[in-house]
């Protein structure tokens, strides 16, 4: 009746939560398709077509905060992460990809206790 399975090796997929930040004076509205294109061009610039043609799924994209949850293969994690870090500007506007969370479990990206905001009730 009781069954237990432990997976210790590298799992197939890896999930990242990323955000695109612009410099002070610049701001742009980017939709989901553009966002995916930016990720692909970042990967292509540094590592070439191989990484940009691998699996990159945008599972969720929020236009207002330019935050996305993406899914990639585990073996391309370091390559994609480094290529996103190196990506510096879009058409002359300085920008930066911020990697907020990384995990091999998608469930982990639902909550980030480090960026938890405390709502306090102030008593009189």
């Amino acid at each position, binding site marked *: *009746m009781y*069954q237990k399975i432990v997976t210790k090796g590298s799992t197939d997929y890896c999930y990242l939560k990323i955000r695109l930040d612009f410099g002070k004076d610049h701001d742009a509205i980017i939709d989901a398709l553009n966002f995916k294109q930016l990720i692909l061009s970042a990967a292509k610039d540094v590592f070439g077509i191989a990484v940009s043609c691998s699996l990159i799924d945008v*599972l969720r994209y929020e236009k207002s905060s330019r935050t996305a949850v993406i899914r990639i293969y585990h073996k391309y994690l370091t390559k994609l992460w480094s290529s996103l870090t190196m990506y510096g500007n879009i058409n002359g506007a300085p920008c930066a990809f911020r990697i907020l969370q990384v*995990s091999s*479990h998608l*469930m982990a990206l639902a*909550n980030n*206790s480090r960026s938890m905001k*405390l709502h306090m009730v102030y008593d009189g």
Partner: protein
Amino acid sequence: MKRVVPTGKLIFERTSFLNENEKHLQCILTHSFNSSIGVFLPEHDCVPRILGDMMDDQMSYYVEQVPLNLLTETDFIKGFVQAGSLCMISYGTCIDSDDCVAVTPEGMLVMSLCKDTYQRCGLDGHLSKAGKNIEKFVVKVDLKSDKFYPGTKYYDRVQWCLSQMANFDFLVTWIPNDGKVCPSSIQNFFKTKSIQCNRLKVNKTNHEFKNFNIPIIDPAVIETDSEQKSCNYDEVFEWLGACAVGIDDYEGDDYLSTYSCPTPNKQASYCIYTQYEGIIHPSIVKQYINYLRQFMKDKKLPWSSVTVHGFVDSPLSWIYDHGFHNNGDNIYTFLMFPNDEYWLYRAIGGQDICP
């Protein structure tokens, strides 16, 4: 081919709530530091009000600049550590770079210290086992011990050493053993010591899904090969995660995302995922799960799931040392079925020790 360090480990267990060992209680009650609890209900449009009230009624506090030797004073130990179940965790400290302090409901003061702080502290501890080449030291002091009282050499030494250390901000939640005592007495205690203590409100987020595909899950079948009458356990976990994150519906558009609901699946008119964030006491989690089991049977839902996220910066994950490599996961998910069976997923970081 170079061996890749795993970024995460998954432990899957399938058993029943009615089992003698009651492993589910062991899992819930030893996971002391919970930062959020989320519930997914398929074929249902709202979470029962009682559960929401349970979360709002919970008393949790944010205390600023607590000197550590206050935690070893007799009136604190007798009044709170021994008279109830106290959960405290330091706020704003990262487990991989700073010192973290926590108090477990069993009355253990756990400190995860950097090398420099440990060498200046003077208390005996061991090297953290969460990962290789991590220079963090774990010091544990048993506050509930019989031998820990003023007058003993050990007590005086601990008091002196803790007074040399810096002050920390804490998130606190306390449930007294005696039902007549109000949990807000801990707030009064801190106020008498002129320490800022404010009550915390729980944050709530909702994801609603309409006309949504949900997988068909058979509690008896975990892995399927050819004749897929139900989904694999790992696909189900990924899908639950996708619902928790609030996945966008891109069905049909392959460019953005090739992810889809695992097959076989069926359509449900309404589904809801609600998440509460704050600091949640393990006994409240236990009450929550018990209520939800009954609710699921009453409303005849095919299954329901509860996910609890632990603090990324807690010094312990279950009973083992916790570390942060590129993530600090210590999550567990109960996927419950009406026949009292459940699937338990425990997800931890790559360097942590399997419970």
